[in-house]
């Protein structure tokens, strides 16, 4: 029996997450017992689970010692970080948190934390994953998680909406939310025309500054339940009204561009579909997915797919389309593959890197190689190395130098890529993968490949180049 505590689960004394023989479990300590019992008996758990707002769990019959209960929560297929979410994803996660806070109050409980990391995307929608975030509501008590909510959700959303979408990446630096004084300094003056933003950020930052060096215990005014509901309502109204318009980003109009003729695009779809039917993967990572046109070929075949793209507009569009269609298997996420999410937080163990979270058995990399090899100067063999580290199977498109898109990349720079040829590509990738199929795409110079990673045995038997 192998037990391993999760690196992310150490702050809350109520309990912690651990893995036993690969099964995810949550231990509840005795100090949390009254709150857990209240969660389960007040009707809150049932309501939240029925509304798909809280991850369901089962109690496992092996308690003892410090443990009051051991739970086995339903497992989320892919754990994403808040800075990998698009604007709409972060907004939906924020609204989910507030809905849960409001529902908890109705059942005589309160959310004791409001970390964005407590929300994950599960079966296409945001869901709260921390069963231990609830405690019994005490009349007059303020909302302890108010600051955390503002810093984890409101600050990045306001910055993305009012200033620049890229400021959402500040969440990558600030693991416990974007400081409100920084948010206040970065937001434009017109933001303060919103009474709610003025209160929750401008005034909030001012109060934090005023009391930052307080060492004595402060007298806190009692807040009635109705006032708490008003507070949550005002946050909901503010968050729900924030908007970001994805105009003018690089890729959002890609498929309306001139990369393919209509028949070439249809042909590419047919080839990818055939490769998918042949490989039959259990799950897919689509790297450089754009708005997910090819991810959807996988989804149609019932294959869960994480669709990564560097463009926030593409990810946002893909997510909103998936929500509208009630699509449960597609998870669009924001990722710059040239600088992927690292392991971060305490001892580099709190939040896992992209590679540590690998979960697919097939990687798709369509119309991506030229961006990595030419725009970012990554040698082809290193691209092959990364893909081989991520999955067993690969569907990859080679875009040659004569292609208009590559010509565009090379228009105003030195061509220092003598090996960037189809032959060079096959040599580089052939050292890591067995090329199972290669198919030219009609009306273009591009080629699609289906590959399988060399296993130690097959490599010895066939001795590839």
């Amino acid at each position: 029996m192998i037990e391993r505590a999760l690196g992310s689960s150490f702050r809350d004394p109520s309990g912690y997450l651990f893995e036993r023989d690969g099964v995810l479990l949550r231990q509840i300590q005795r100090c949390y017992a009254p709150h857990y019992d209240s969660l389960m008996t007040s009707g809150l758990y049932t309501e939240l689970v029925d509304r798909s707002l809280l991850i369901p769990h089962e109690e496992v019959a092996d308690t003892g010692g410090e443990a009051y209960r051991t739970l086995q929560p339903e497992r989320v297929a892919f754990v994403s970080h808040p800075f990998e979410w698009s604007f709409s994803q972060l907004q939906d996660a924020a609204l989910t948190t507030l809905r849960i806070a409001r529902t908890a109050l109705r059942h005589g409980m309160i959310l004791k934390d409001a970390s964005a990391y407590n929300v994950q995307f599960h079966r296409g929608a945001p869901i709260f994953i921390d069963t231990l975030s609830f405690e019994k509501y005490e009349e007059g008590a303020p909302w302890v998680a108010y600051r955390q909510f503002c810093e984890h959700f409101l600050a990045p959303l306001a910055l993305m909406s009012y200033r620049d979408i890229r400021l959402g990446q500040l969440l990558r630096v600030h693991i416990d939310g974007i400081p409100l004084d920084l948010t206040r300094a970065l937001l434009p003056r017109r933001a303060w025309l919103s009474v709610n933003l003025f209160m929750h950020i401008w005034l909030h930052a001012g109060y934090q500054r005023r009391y930052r060096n307080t060492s004595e215990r402060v007298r806190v005014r009692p807040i009635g339940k109705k006032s708490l509901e008003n507070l949550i309502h005002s946050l909901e109204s503010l968050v729900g009204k924030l908007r970001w318009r994805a105009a003018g980003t690089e890729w959002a109009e890609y498929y309306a561009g001139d990369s393919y003729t209509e028949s070439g695009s249809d042909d590419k779809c047919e080839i990818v579909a055939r490769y998918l039917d042949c490989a039959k993967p259990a799950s897919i990572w689509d790297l450089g997915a754009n708005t997910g046109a090819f991810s959807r070929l996988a989804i149609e075949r019932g294959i869960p797919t994480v669709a990564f793209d560097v463009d926030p507009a593409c990810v946002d569009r893909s997510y909103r389309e998936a929500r509208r269609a009630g699509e449960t298997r597609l998870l669009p996420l924001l990722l710059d593959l040239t600088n992927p999410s690292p392991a971060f937080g305490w001892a580099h163990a709190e939040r896992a890197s992209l590679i540590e979270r690998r979960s697919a058995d097939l990687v798709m990399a369509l119309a991506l190689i030229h961006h990595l090899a030419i725009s970012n100067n990554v040698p082809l063999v290193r691209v092959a190395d990364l893909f081989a580290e991520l999955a067993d199977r690969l569907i990859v498109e080679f875009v040659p130098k004569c292609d208009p898109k590559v010509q565009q990349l090379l228009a105003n720079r030195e061509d220092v890529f003598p090996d960037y040829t189809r032959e060079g590509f096959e040599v580089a990738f052939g050292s890591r993968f067995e090329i199972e199929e290669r198919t030219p795409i009609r009306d273009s110079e591009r080629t699609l490949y289906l590959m399988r990673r060399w296993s130690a045995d097959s490599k010895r038997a066939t001795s590839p180049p």
Partner: protein
Amino acid sequence: MGSGDRWLAVGAAVAFEFVSGAAGASWSGNSQLAYVDPGTGSFILQALVAALAGIVVTLNIYWSKIKGFMGFGSKPTDAENSNSFDSADD
């Protein structure tokens, strides 16, 4: 804190005293499980914001009623419709 900030903070505090009518009262509860640092300023501000939010909510309700009465009821925009959440179930 700049002079403008101070002015607003004072104004807000006066408004709070006015709306809360709870001068002198304090919440003495203490949750041992509140492991998240609520932040002293955030803790103090919260009562003020909750009271102001109450006023904003009330004003919004009356404003909608006045608009409705005058026949200027606003239709939801496409952007509002596209929001993934509707609040009808709460």
